[in-house]
């Protein structure tokens, strides 16, 4: 027998053994996980492990909640004459769950954010609950709520502000009608905001100045080309069609309609009456923008250099390019926005703020949490040579990273921290339950694999098999005891 733990993935807890000690040890190592049941993965693993074994049997002990199609496994079970049995455990119980919780900053006003909370009543009775949303541990919203039977309720908390870093939602259900605690809490981390220092050099551009005013988290220095340039470092330098010597001033650069002498890449040719015919949909520069609607009167196409990435291009040539030069990163836009209808659209401030956020290397992610059971690819400094991960239970594990990414299969919901070798916190993130079906505490009495319906085997009792010698010794002990008396009372002599 081999015992394996089934969460979203499968974890063998023992080798194939008939030793009850080994098997009992395995059961002692069973641990709960905040993930769904990867039933297909589990049965597939069992098939692999049973290959070549006589009278193979897979016994699934579960409440039967899973969301996978198992039909493809049926021929494999039949082909290998594997018996599949299913023992339902637990009992059907009512439950109210937080089935989704997330937070996003508004694209234009990043000082404010919106929270989404989804509650699911998995029972056939109405439920009354109290929702509490806490920011950095302190309650910021407390609402009573009533849920109809089987209701899925979405709630949005709009225009929230403040410097809360961590958000936690919890529900308290009235009465003894909430039988799963783990889904009563959900976690989210507000995408971090830092103040970007921006230097904008422009001969005068109302649209540029107005767009820069939209984000109060920008520390903007506006200069005309004739003014002296400060030597301090900026996060982003916006060069609005000007040709200036930046000297010792460092910072990533956003070029708007650069001239051939100021452009960071060669200008290929002038172009007219064009728009975005192709664009990189995944580029953060074009997030929330519909580029196909933008029409440009005139501009010029670039000739990208090796390593440059074309973000937007027309049939006439590329005109939005991102790249890196010796000591700075850049984004170059090959037209004056005022010679397009872009400045009349919301696309203009979005594009500008996207560029600043992207070049400023701030966290532009909208994701406020990861999902348990998934493989998390966590960004860490590329130079980090082994970072540690502190989980919700406080456990700290050291992990190597590869190309600035730490890969981890997380199974517990809560807040995590990534620490460097000096135990300095590099980043935080939240993880939440992925599968809402796991919150439905309805026990399935059968496990269906294709047309094969498995249920509890006849006479099945969940007990450990006894070893024969133990029984023999017990028998011998009893016999010796009885024989003692029969001998002395001459019963058998």
């Amino acid at each position, binding site marked *: 027998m081999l015992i394996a733990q089934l969460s979203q993935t499968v974890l063998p807890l023992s080798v194939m053994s008939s030793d009850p000690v080994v098997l009992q040890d395995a059961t002692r190592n069973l641990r709960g996980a905040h993930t769904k049941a990867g039933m297909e993965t589990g049965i597939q*693993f069992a098939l692999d492990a049973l290959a070549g074994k006589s009278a193979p049997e897979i016994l699934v002990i579960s409440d039967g909640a899973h969301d996978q199609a198992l039909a493809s496994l049926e021929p494999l079970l039949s082909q290998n004459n594997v018996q599949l049995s299913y023992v339902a455990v637990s009992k059907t119980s009512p439950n109210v769950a937080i089935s989704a919780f997330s937070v996003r900053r508004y694209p234009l006003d990043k000082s404010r954010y919106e929270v989404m909370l989804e509650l699911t009543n998995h029972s056939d009775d109405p439920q009354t609950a109290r929702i509490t949303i806490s920011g950095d541990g302190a309650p910021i919203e407390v609402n009573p709520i009533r849920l109809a039977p089987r209701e899925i309720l979405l709630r949005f908390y709009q225009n929230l502000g403040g410097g809360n870093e961590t958000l936690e939602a919890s529900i308290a259900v009235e009465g003894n009608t909430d039988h799963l605690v783990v889904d009563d809490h959900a976690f989210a981390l507000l995408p971090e905001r830092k103040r970007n220092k921006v230097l904008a050099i422009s001969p005068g551009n109302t649209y540029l100045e107005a767009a820069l005013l939209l984000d109060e988290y920008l520390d903007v220095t506006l200069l005309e080309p004739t003014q002296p340039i400060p030597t301090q470092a900026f996060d982003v330098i916006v060069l609005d069609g000007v040709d200036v010597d930046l000297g010792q001033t460092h910072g990533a650069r956003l070029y708007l309609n650069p001239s051939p002498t100021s452009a960071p890449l060669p200008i290929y040719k002038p172009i007219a009456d064009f728009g975005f015919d192709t664009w990189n949909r995944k580029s953060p520069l074009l997030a929330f923008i519909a580029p196909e609607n933008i029409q440009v009167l005139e501009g010029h196409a670039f000739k990208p250099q090796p390593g440059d990435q074309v973000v937007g291009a027309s049939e006439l040539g590329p005109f939005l390019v991102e790249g890196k030069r010796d000591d700075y990163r850049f984004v170059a836009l090959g037209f004056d926005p005022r010679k397009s209808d872009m400045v009349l659209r919301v696309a203009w401030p979005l594009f500008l703020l996207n560029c600043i956020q992207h070049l400023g290397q701030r966290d532009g992610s909208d994701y406020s949490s990861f999902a348990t059971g998934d493989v998390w690819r966590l960004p860490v400094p590329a130079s980090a040579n082994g970072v540690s991960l502190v989980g919700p239970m406080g456990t700290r594990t050291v992990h190597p990273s590869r190309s600035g990414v730490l890969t981890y299969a997380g199974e517990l919901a809560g807040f995590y921290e990534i620490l460097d070798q000096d135990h300095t916190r590099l980043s935080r993130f939240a993880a939440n339950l992925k599968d809402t079906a796991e919150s439905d505490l309805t026990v399935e009495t059968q496990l269906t694999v294709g047309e094969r319906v498995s249920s509890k085997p006849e006479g099945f009792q969940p007990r450990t098999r006894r070893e024969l010698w133990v029984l023999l010794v017990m028998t011998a002990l009893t016999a010796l005891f009885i024989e003692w008396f029969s001998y002395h009372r001459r019963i058998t002599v």
Partner: protein
Amino acid sequence: MNRRLIFASSVLLTVCATGAWATLSFIRTFSAQGAIAATFNGVSYELLQPNYLALVWLAPLLWFGLRWSLTDLPLIQRALSWLTRGALLSLLALALARPFTRDRSEAIATAFLVDVSDSVTDAAVAEALTSIREHLALAPQDAEITLIAFAERPALYPLPANPKEAQQLLPSVQALRQPSPTGTSVRSGTATNIQAALQLAYGVLPSSKLKRVLIYSDGAETLGDVASEAGRAQEFGISVFAIPYTVPPPAEVAVRDLTLPNKLVIGETFKIQTRIYATQASKARLQLFQDAGLNGLGGTREVELIKGENSFEFQSVVRVGGEVTYRLELTPLGADRFKENNTYSVTVDVPGRPMVLYVEGQPQRASYLANALTAQQFDVDVRPASAFPTSVSELSRYDFVVLSDVPADQISVGSQNAVEGYLRDLGGGFLFAGGVAGYSLGGWEQTPLARVLPVDMDAPQHKQMPSVAMALVIDRSASMAGLPLEMAKTACRATVETLRDDDLVEIIAFDQEPTRYVKLQPARYNTRIQNDISRIQHSGGTDFFPALDMAYQDISVAQARKKHVILLTDGRAEPRGIHDLVQAMLAESITVTTVGVGDDTDSDLLRMIAETGGGRFHLAPDPNSLPRIFTHETEMLTRSTSVQEWFPVTQTGSADFLRGVAINTAPLLHGYVATQMKPSPAQELLATDTGDPILARMRVGLGQSLAWTSDVKNAWAIEWLRWPAFSTFWGQLVREHMRKKSHRELDMQLSLVNNQLTATVDAFDDQEQFANNLHATLSLKSAASKTGETKYPMRQVAPGRYQSVLNLDDYGTFTLHGEYYRENDDGELVRMGDSFGHVSNPYPTEYQTLEGDAERLEAAALAGGGSLNPTAARLFAPQGKSIESRKYYWAHVLMVALVVFGLISLLRRVRLFDRSFQ
């Protein structure tokens, strides 16, 4: 039994029970604190099941047998027997308690995982086997060996645990590539799942040894995640090592990608890029297909491939909107192992051109506007009035509708209401164009359609009313004798009575020759005209050309703003010259209506005359209907306010579509229907020099309604047809007023990883806030499947963000369409947006990732606490680690118990003390 004995027995029972209870309590207490252990000679002995020790308290109870023993053994021997029996019981209890000692082991158990997926050559697998053999040669004797081959699934290969024996019995390369001899599940080579192989290794490595896994692979993982699994392995005490294959991948050419622009426009050429990967320099023939045929702008090309990635461009153009599938087929002209990756398809949905419905009362003249709109990139559906759509849903197919020169009685009330619904609810664009049957000329006053037009059809009172000159050309041949001729005369009388006093009328009756019964004169001379009509008598045959020509000659010189001829006949005539005559009449703004009586009429000829002459054709099998037809025709003519004279057009209002169109250069128009503007929001855009509206528009609900009071063909607008800006004018007009999509196109982000497709859409409302609570569905359609599309719900996962995760189990190219609906205040679902995407899953990833990924293996080895390319010494070295194992002694205790049992037998059979017989 005396009291002392009873008391002693009671005490003994109490002591035993108390002792057993105390023992169990002691064990329970100490078990909670740790194992029950005792140390002898520095060795710690522990009990696995210490509760069994309570059985020792059975031994004192043996005294009862001794006290009442009937044996004749000496007391000392009986006592000795009691002690040995008690010892035996105690030993059995001790065996059941299972004493054990803990031991530390440095023995290694190693699982060798060998990647045998399709991307791995036999030479690489042989390299792995050689490496395993070398490692085994240096493995310690107590090492335990396991061999697992894996591709999509892992399979265990039975080997002797001893490394030396295992070294001799390693399977061949071919055996490893076969499905496992142990009868595993189906194992496909089309994927690489190192994670599954690691998981299986957990289940075969014994817990009593230090566990090691050594992975041989190219690192091109297509399923699972080995790095995260390796981290987990380390948490469970398994060290993961890896050796990347050094043998290069097989000679292979693969189409990696086929990229089309995000936006395709019909008729515009665009570039298609393809990336082709070759493991060595080679040649190949590329064929690009557009749907079933070769790409028109270069479909076949022979190319030189360098080692690594190659990029090539094709040009193409799409002529018809809808789904278009591009398929690149690569024919290798050198070595190539896999055929599966030689084809790549992409399907895109090309939006069609805007669709215009053009319903023309004179379809033979529809070509002018239709051609102009086609030149402006519109698809034009020209229909006669009889085919006008009758429902809003039918109209919804069109972005703009033109209704030109059609009388009201040919468009049903239902159709007119549908136009209103199309404007109000669907936001459509509608142009009502004039002509001889437009506006009041066609009886459009007080109709549902009149309500939505920006002009009023009631003629302004202050304007000079146009006069009418009408010629009635009546067949008086012999075949008309009787009722037909009488009813024709009645129709003529009714016509005269309907005309205004100043209107001119002439009546010509004809057989072979025409006779002018009523000369052209004002209708006020009613009595005289009635008498003249009574004189008409039947005679002779039928030839209406001379009569028509006479009417033309007479009426052409008349001073009237409208000139009209009604020709009535029941027979046939020589058509020669008639067409030219009617064209000449129309050139002088004389319109002709024809009426056929009876069954022998030449309907085709009469219809031709009416259509050429800008009038109407009426077939009257029953002569009794003639007065009604004549009256109706007359009413249309007299009631109308059509103006037929040359006049210039001036711009009176501003509109975007008029930018770039120099109206002051427009030629003169030659007629219009006089109307007057409705109050605001109706807006006049163009007018005559006398101030009558020519073009006006008005918003109706979500749509725009336009009125063009002249015509759009070679009658009143004949000079405009030669205007260079004619096409631009109409194209821009339609483009500005055609139906705008009331919903947005939302960007769809697609990610395909391990055959799992994730579609994510961000939705914002008009205020650029997150659009929440949308009803979102995603439709997935395979280009190859004929079964239609599959719909999936999209779940809201964050403010404004909707997501659907689905498994793409099939290979091919797929189009995706997301639909987003918002619930309005009435609970109805209103479409808020759409999103489109396409994704290709052309063949298993195994055939795409041909390069090894040693970095991935290194990351896994680091995460698993091991290293890359370990030596045998490193692999089998405990590295300061040891693993705890248990040594059980229950068998030893039972052996001692057996010895004691022999001693008991001796004590029974041999009288050791007091050997004299008593």
